[in-house]
């Protein structure tokens, strides 16, 4: 601080010149970090940690007329299949129904878990969108949904012949997802 002639301890001394830019550089870094977060937001999907684990024990009553309910032993009969977690109140569930119909037509067995659904609503949904399911269990209190680590609808689980979850598809199945699902089914021994 003392002004006793020219010295190298002043505010523009060579050693200190670059530190002058440090706050601005830190600020730029912060702006870049925020911009990155805004432009490429983190995924909000919560994948199930239960992939690779055997399904928990459950026994759901039938949710729709003409289709039996769903229990764990139905899903461990030696043949891989898809377990579709859905609901009539879920819009993307209607979007994926043509894809489910295609998979069912290709001989894939699809079982459904109808989450917090009213019988009348579900009947209307199946009438409008078709019914690719062999069995539909009514999960009125999200027991199976939470039991397999599902965080929303629709989600589709690939179950192998021993009742072990091999793959989880989050969100609606779009046409471009079908080859991947068929590959995974083949891997599981179809």
């Amino acid at each position, binding site marked *: 601080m003392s002004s006793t002639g020219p010295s190298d301890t002043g505010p523009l001394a060579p050693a200190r010149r670059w530190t002058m830019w440090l706050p601005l550089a830190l600020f730029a870094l912060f702006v870049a970090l925020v911009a990155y977060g805004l432009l490429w937001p983190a995924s*909000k999907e919560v994948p199930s940690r239960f992939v690779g684990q055997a399904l928990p024990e459950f026994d759901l009553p039938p949710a729709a007329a003409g289709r039996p309910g769903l229990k764990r032993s139905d899903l461990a009969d030696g043949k891989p299949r898809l377990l579709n977690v859905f609901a009539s*109140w879920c819009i993307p569930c209607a979007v994926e129904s043509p894809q489910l119909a295609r998979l069912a037509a290709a001989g894939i067995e699809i079982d459904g878990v109808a989450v917090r659904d009213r019988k009348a609503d579900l009947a209307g949904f199946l009438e409008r969108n078709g019914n690719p399911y062999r069995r539909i269990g009514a999960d009125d209190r999200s027991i199976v949904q*939470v039991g397999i680590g599902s965080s929303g609808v629709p989600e589709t689980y690939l179950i192998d012949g021993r009742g072990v979850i091999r793959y989880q598809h989050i969100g609606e199945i779009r046409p471009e997802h079908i080859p991947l699902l068929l590959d995974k089914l083949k891997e599981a021994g179809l």
Partner: protein
Amino acid sequence: MTMRFPIGLQRALLCLAILLAPLAAGTLRADDIMPPAPYAYRQLDDPALEAKAQRLMESIRCLTCQSQSIADSDASLAGDMRSQIRERIAAGEEPEAIRTWLVERYGDYITYAPRVTSLTWPLFAAPLAFLALAALLLRKRFGFGRPGADRTDGGGAA
């Protein structure tokens, strides 16, 4: 035949219509209308058990509204999870066992009480490291433990 309103009144009516639209569209919301699970909105009769359940529910993240706890959220899935937690606590299960059960299904994301793992240990270690660093710097500054290096006593015996 058509009703004509002054432009200001038209705007006011439009605003009112927009404000009231969600009420009219109540049946169109993309959520279920099932009655809630038994213990979603009902406390356990035993206050001690309810307090246990409440402490756990406040630290479990809602999967639908991801910045709320299931205790705070009105999402149906959160209600179902509250009911499951209360029923399991009433059946004698320990809160931490239920937390572990949930972490097995949803990962650490589900809990607001982070565990120390190979991924999260810096969160716990960093404050300690900063405290140690601060102690070191302050020690230097105050000159503790360095009796020969005090700067104020410059005129003492050499």
